[in-house]
């Protein structure tokens, strides 16, 4: 079984982003970038399925400029077999990303697509669902457990009320939640090996997909900051503040 894992290059999750003074966006100059944490979990899950003898090949794909090759190499070091970069300088919406991924699915014919539930920059949480819609596949979003057997995949999903398990006919799309697994670190020998694994580059505009977005960002502002509060001396003081000053308890 072939598994396709779409991965995104995003700001490192430890970085506190700053909004540009002209409110045109956030400042990404000289900021540490990384593989989106949910994509890392997706790669790990695919590698575990390969180690379990269920998957035979793992293909990772990323859409973006040359810099995304760094994250593709990371994914290869974690155990993916080959990588595809769809090259573009444009910042795409989830819909355009999903349309391009649908073309990759058509070419590669994977049995399973595993991807992140959310990119921690846009916080969109859309692409997996959109890809599933465009390819007519079933979707197992926010997965905390994935079991593949006999042409089906059972996905346990983290939902607002607890957990839900669905069964999907393969091929299917799975999106990862935090509890699915704990990703490994790439070992030095694997990082070296990853440099020799195949990485194909194709122009994103060669797929016949209109890449322009219908959604325009008018401004990006910093959120209202909270006033620094006070440290109190004891519980009695806290209770009286909550009652008499904040009036949030009675």
């Amino acid at each position, binding site marked *: 079984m072939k598994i396709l894992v779409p991965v995104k290059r995003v700001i490192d999750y430890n970085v506190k982003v700053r909004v540009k003074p002209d409110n045109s966006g956030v400042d990404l100059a000289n900021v540490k970038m990384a593989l989106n944490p949910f994509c890392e979990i997706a790669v790990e899950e695919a590698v575990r399925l390969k180690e379990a003898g269920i998957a035979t090949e793992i293909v990772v794909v990323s859409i973006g400029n040359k810099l995304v090759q760094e994250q593709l190499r990371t994914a290869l070091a974690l155990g993916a077999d080959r990588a595809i970069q769809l090259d573009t300088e444009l910042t795409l919406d989830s819909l355009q990303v999903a349309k391009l991924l649908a073309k990759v699915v058509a070419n590669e014919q994977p049995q399973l697509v595993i991807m992140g539930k959310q990119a921690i920059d846009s916080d969109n*949480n859309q692409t997996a669902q959109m890809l599933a*819609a465009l390819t007519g596949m079933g979707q197992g*979003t926010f997965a905390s457990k994935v079991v593949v057997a006999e042409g089906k995949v059972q996905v346990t*999903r983290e939902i607002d009320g*607890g*957990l839900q398990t669905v069964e999907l006919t393969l091929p299917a799309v799975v999106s990862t939640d935090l509890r699915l697994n704990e990703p490994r670190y790439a070992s030095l020998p694997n990082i070296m090996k990853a440099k020799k694994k195949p990485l194909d580059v194709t122009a994103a505009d060669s797929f016949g997909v209109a890449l322009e977005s219908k959604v325009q960002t008018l401004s990006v502002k910093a*959120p209202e900051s909270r006033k620094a509060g006070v440290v109190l001396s004891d519980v009695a003081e806290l209770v009286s503040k909550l009652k008499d000053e904040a009036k949030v308890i009675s």
Partner: protein
Amino acid sequence: MTILVIAEHNNSSLKADTYKTVQAASLLGAEVHLLVAGEQCQTAAAQAAEVVGVTKVLVADDAAYGHQLAENVAALVAELGKGYSHILAAATTTGKNMLPRVAALLDVAQISDVIAIASADTFVRPVYAGNAIATVQSADSIKVLTVRSSAFAAAPTGNSAAIEKLDIVKELGVSRFVSEELTKSERPELTAAKVIISGGRGMQNGENFALLNGIADKLNAAIGASRAAVDAGFVPNDMQVGQTGKIVAPDLYIAVGISGAIQHLAGMKDSKVIVAINKDAEAPIFQVADYGLVGDLFTILPELEAAL
């Protein structure tokens, strides 16, 4: 211009998020239709007719929609949606699962987690874990939005909108509901509670979360958690507050043994009053807390329970 809102319900009652989403839709200044897709969902549909602002309730009652399988519900909504200017659902796990599928089927973008409506085509939403607030304008023919419940008031009840039964069954046959394990609790729901007390890694284990119960009882509070507490298995996943968990904005949020990572703050920093209890005076949570107590939670929690 007519707006379609997708109701969130469990067949027998509407979820609080539905009232908030209708309220957001009403701000767009147009007629609102509320879709109740489910199985044996007449009671939920009757409640939907009572929501002020709704001019028509559409009911699709079929086994195909019983468990809100995204594949089937999205196919239904996409078919209905062609006649609407906007399609809205709550940014809950149900809405997030289904609505992007609708947007893709309609070949339009989705705008996620809307926190304010600037005009019929311009919306405000947080990005980068709430560290930036973007205002975006959509030129799509149909605007598809998920709405963050914590940012909107609930639409009141007292209406009696017309109910129209739909005869559209979409069973894609690619997915099947297997089982569900829902967390049972007598407490208010996290996203609806006026008071929340959350525990983090500092709680040390699941048993110690009992220290929060007495306080939660006295304050009629919901209990939440940080990712670290969920990952460590102290409490179930549905208690996670944060960027990738639940977004809450209660009147009072008490963070106990939580350091205040940006991903946690993203889920609670719009609370009216924040209290932090942490033994580390340097913990970032104190930068957003209105009131802080620096000390050992194992001494402070029993004292707090006794003092309330």
